């Protein structure tokens, strides 16, 4: 019988301890993987989405808030800008595409956003069609919103005032779903889209604000144009904010919450170390019970270093089992986290995309476990054979 045989039988003999220890390791490993993968994937997903548009024009305020509100449909709107501002930027020679959006209503928590059909230039319809005319009481739903709301082509609804569920009142305006977008894996998926004039002229909305928009999403003809417009709106003017470049603003956001990442990482590291310590404790505590077995093995001719190696290998094997299971734990946790992120931001993360953490975290944990096995292995190494063979009374 080889050392692996001894290790396997020991793990089987102490099955309960093996399972509990491996579970602790699996949870720690799963947490480590989740923290890194979600962090990386969320950043990638946000950045990918952000690259669909180069800039956002809105009322004077925070660029980050403007981007979060107009691109990710998060946060409250800044103040509005006039439709004339939209017309001005739309006609600007440096602008390839300008998409107005108007917000202020929701349908059971999903934002109802007014826009123009050009918004869907790069999207496909899964069913139905786009609305016809600027003022038609028709809606096109993002795929995620349609599924969550249980609406299909032909369904009807009344928007509720306010950006969050449970707003002050339901509008009398009646909308019919005429189309459902195919999944885009972008925030577009979680929105109920209606014509921009629908939001502007919605029953109960301030009539004085009927020519106002929440923001304008802009695709530029060249990067140089962005800097020119940045200077024009942000430094020379004082009524509007030109958030450019969107990707950099999103990256800055992740930079600002970097400390939170570091705290999460620290917690994950600590959980990993504590889990590896449980391997040490589990095996060390069982050493008294194994004293006799170890003495018997020595009496049969096993060398001290053989027992040392067997105990270290057992700790290592626990680490390997725990890390294998950690991918299962990761799969469960990350699905939940991904669903929350998608619900809140529309961003879709790909949890199984290769990330170095999937290599170094398991390897690191297994190494920690092996190191944790050294102390009980030393105890095994020092087994007093003659004393160990004496039955304990």
């Amino acid at each position: 019988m080889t050392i692996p045989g001894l290790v396997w039988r020991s793990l089987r003999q102490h099955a309960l301890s093996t399972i509990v220890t491996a579970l602790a390791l699996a949870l720690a490993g799963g947490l480590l993987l989740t923290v890194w993968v979600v962090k990386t994937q969320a950043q990638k997903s946000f950045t990918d989405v952000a690259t669909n548009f180069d800039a956002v024009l809105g009322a004077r305020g925070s660029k980050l808030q403007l981007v979060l509100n107009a691109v990710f449909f998060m946060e409250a709107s800044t103040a509005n800008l006039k439709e004339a501002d939209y017309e001005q930027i739309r006609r600007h020679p440096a602008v390839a595409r300008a998409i107005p959006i108007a917000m202020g209503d929701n349908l059971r928590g999903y934002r109802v956003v007014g826009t123009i059909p050009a918004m869907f230039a790069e999207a496909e319809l899964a069913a139905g069609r786009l609305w016809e005319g600027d003022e038609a009481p028709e809606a096109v739903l993002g795929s995620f919103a349609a599924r969550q709301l249980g609406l299909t082509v032909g369904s009807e609804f009344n928007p509720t005032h306010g950006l969050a569920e449970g707003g002050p009142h339901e509008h009398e305006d009646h909308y019919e779903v005429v189309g459902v977008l195919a999944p885009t894996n972008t925030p577009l998926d979680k929105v109920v889209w209606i014509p921009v004039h629908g939001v502007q002229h919605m029953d109960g909305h301030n009539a004085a604000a009927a020519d106002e928009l929440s923001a304008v999403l802009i695709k530029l003809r060249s990067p140089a144009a962005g800097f020119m417009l940045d200077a024009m709106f942000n430094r020379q003017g004082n009524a509007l904010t030109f958030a450019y470049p969107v990707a950099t603003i999103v990256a800055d956001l992740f930079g600002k919450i970097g400390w939170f990442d570091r705290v999460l990482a620290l917690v994950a590291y600590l959980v990993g170390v504590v889990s590896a310590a449980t391997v040490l404790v589990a095996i060390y505590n069982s050493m008294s019970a194994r004293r006799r077995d170890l003495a018997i093995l020595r009496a049969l001719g096993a060398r001290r270093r053989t027992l040392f190696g067997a105990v270290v290998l057992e700790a290592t094997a626990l680490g390997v089992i725990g890390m294998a299971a950690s991918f299962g734990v990761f799969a469960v946790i990350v699905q939940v986290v991904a669903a929350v992120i998608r619900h809140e931001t529309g961003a879709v993360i790909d949890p199984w995309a290769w990330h170095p953490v999937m290599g170094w975290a398991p390897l690191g944990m297994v190494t920690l476990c092996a190191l944790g096995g050294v102390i009980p292995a030393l105890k095994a190494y020092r087994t007093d054979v003659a004393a160990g063979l004496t039955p304990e009374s």
Partner: protein
Amino acid sequence: MASVITFMALLDITDLRKAYRNPDGQRAEVVQVPALALEAGQQVALRGASGSGKTTFLHLLAGILAADSGTVRIDGQDMAALAEPKRDRLRATAMGYIFQTFNLLQGHTALDNVVLGMAFGPGKVDRPHARALLERVGLAGKLHHFPRQLSTGQQQRVAVARALANRPKLVLADEPTGNLDPRNAREAIALIREVCRENGAALLLVSHDEDVLMQFDDVRDFTALNQAAHLREVAS
């Protein structure tokens, strides 16, 4: 000129000594055996009362304990002079040990326990040999039983099979029937002797049980052999 042929004993003990220090700091001699020799295939029983140093003596022969002085030659190698790893190797290669409490590993099946008897030597593990040994001791149907699933007598047989698994030249048996009833004890001794004979292994057994001892032709008094025990008696 006439040639002289000398036969080297399989086990040759010379002036073997082992002492412990008592809690009060006094040195207590436990084993002091001037000489003992066993030929290959010889079967010897040592009669000794509890506390006479029998187990310590066997541990010295097996290299489980290091002697303070003296020699223990097993097949020409001085166990007492070897470094611990070499003592382990010699024990794994040339010796089998049957314990009073059997000392089977509870997490291993009968077959695995026997396999362990050959696991630490230089050769490859021979599972068919382990299986054959268990069949020889009457446990063909219990190969995959764990010790807790076996009767005391069956556990003893597994221990016998394990002691012979590495094809040893010398089997040491320390009160091997201490936990058996008289009938099972007689059968166990007969089995141990038979299997050792079949495998060409010498047998050195220690016991205080007269029923066991009377099954041997060559019975020696360990109390007389061990000068340390004699000294203790004189001192008291």
